[in-house]
């Protein structure tokens, strides 16, 4: 089934029937290896919508400012951030039309540019063909290997959305996802404290504090970020690895119990800091400590806003132990 075609038809109907005022989807630009977000209001514009293995962006990030009711094209993974926004009262269920798309996985940001088999300039199109990703170039067709997909796609359990109003791409509706695999986290955990510090300070020496991670995050909906606050000034203008790291820890802590590991932050980061490791670590702990998997149940209370009497005691603290 041609998902793009299916999507265009659905979008056109929704807009022309007035079911939604706007639709957030993907469109092609000048370069065949990039897709851009498209926010359309006119049924005629629906013709520009596409869904391909380059549909990387999590479009939920654009939902807050869009004209409501808004239709939003979501992959199973993006859906989870939408569920979180519902949980956190950032949008009413009635204001959003969930256009779910089954997805076999999307490509990493630099997968096409670093492929030795062809040059970016040769790329003509990128298509999904029966669950495989194919690149059509002037020098032939190439199938992309699995490790060219985003990390989250390789352990994906939500190929089909589990909550939607329209399902694009057919197939069975998905099931509510279990906790993700938190790839890479364990390797860091195994390091010594000194190695961890060195690793992160090295990574954050690259950070230019552009805040793209924050801006691209669908869950960073605060009217004004604490990192921008002056009273108190949590983060100073000094861009050094330590300050960068601590500035980041604020976001990571704030993501705990909310972050659905969509990977937008890491994707948006221009300098390639493996941010997902940090967010996945927080998600992993929330899941292990409190059994909570965010972005699944729109009615559930986010993990940090509730508690259970039998929550584990902080490890290495005394708890009830006598000295």
């Amino acid at each position, binding site marked *: 089934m041609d998902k793009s075609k299916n999507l265009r038809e659905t979008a056109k109907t929704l807009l022309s029937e007035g079911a939604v005022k706007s639709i957030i989807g993907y469109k092609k630009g000048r370069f065949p290896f990039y897709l851009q977000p498209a926010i359309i209001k006119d049924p005629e514009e629906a013709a520009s919508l596409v869904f391909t293995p380059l549909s990387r962006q999590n479009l939920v990030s654009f939902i807050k400012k869009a004209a409501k009711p808004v239709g939003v094209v979501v992959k199973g993974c993006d859906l989870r951030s939408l569920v979180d926004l519902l949980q956190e009262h950032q949008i009413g269920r009635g204001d959003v039309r969930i256009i779910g798309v089954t997805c076999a996985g999307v490509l990493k940001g630099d997968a096409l540019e670093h492929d030795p088999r062809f040059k970016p300039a040769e790329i003509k199109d990128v298509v999904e063909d029966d669950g495989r990703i194919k690149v059509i170039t002037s020098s032939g067709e190439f199938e992309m290997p699995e490790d060219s997909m985003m990390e989250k796609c390789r352990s994906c359990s939500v190929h089909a959305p589990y909550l939607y109003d329209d399902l694009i791409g057919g197939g069975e509706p998905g099931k509510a996802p279990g906790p993700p695999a938190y790839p890479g986290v364990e390797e860091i955990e195994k390091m010594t404290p000194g190695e961890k510090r*060195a690793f992160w300070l090295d990574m954050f020496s690259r950070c230019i504090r552009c805040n793209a991670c924050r801006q691209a995050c669908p869950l960073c909906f605060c009217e004004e970020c604490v990192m921008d606050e002056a009273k108190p000034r949590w983060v100073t203008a000094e861009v050094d690895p330590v300050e960068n790291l601590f500035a980041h820890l604020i976001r990571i802590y704030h993501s705990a119990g909310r972050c659905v590991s969509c990977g937008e932050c890491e994707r948006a980061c221009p300098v390639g800091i493996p941010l997902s490791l940090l967010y996945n670590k927080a998600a992993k702990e929330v899941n292990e400590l409190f059994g909570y998997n965010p972005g699944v149940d729109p009615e559930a209370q986010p993990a940090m806003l509730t508690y259970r009497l039998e929550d584990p005691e902080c490890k290495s603290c005394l708890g009830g132990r006598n000295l």
Partner: protein
Amino acid sequence: MSKAEEKEKTENAEKHEWEPKIVGFLCRWCSYAGADLAGSSRIEYPPNVRVIRVPCSGRVNPLHVLRAFRKGADAVLVAGCHPGDCHYSEGNYYARRRLDVLKELLEFIGIEPERFRLEWCSASEARRFADVITEVTGQVKKLGPLNPKENKNG
């Protein structure tokens, strides 16, 4: 800091061995009262803890803990009423969740678990309070200074 103070400080530093800086957030109902009782009971403990009195362990914003580490704390202690004993009935349960996660994150970036403690200490547990401070101080002395600034390259 004035020049004279600075000079004096370096002199002092040379005179004494390195002393860890520990920031302690104490809930006013239980742990701060416990610390007061340690005083009235004349229980001596290391002078390394700098106490910030908060109404409840649930008031402690993890950002404050991060700030303490950022500004050079070698350890941070948050102490509140025992579970079930919170003056506000549930603040410490929220604190436990928040700080449990924070602790894991700190560990993940290389801050040893001994440097961050969440403790339950009631108004009557003066001895326990003193013991906790003594233990943390000892552990941190063993670990040495955290000061991430100096650890830029490992």
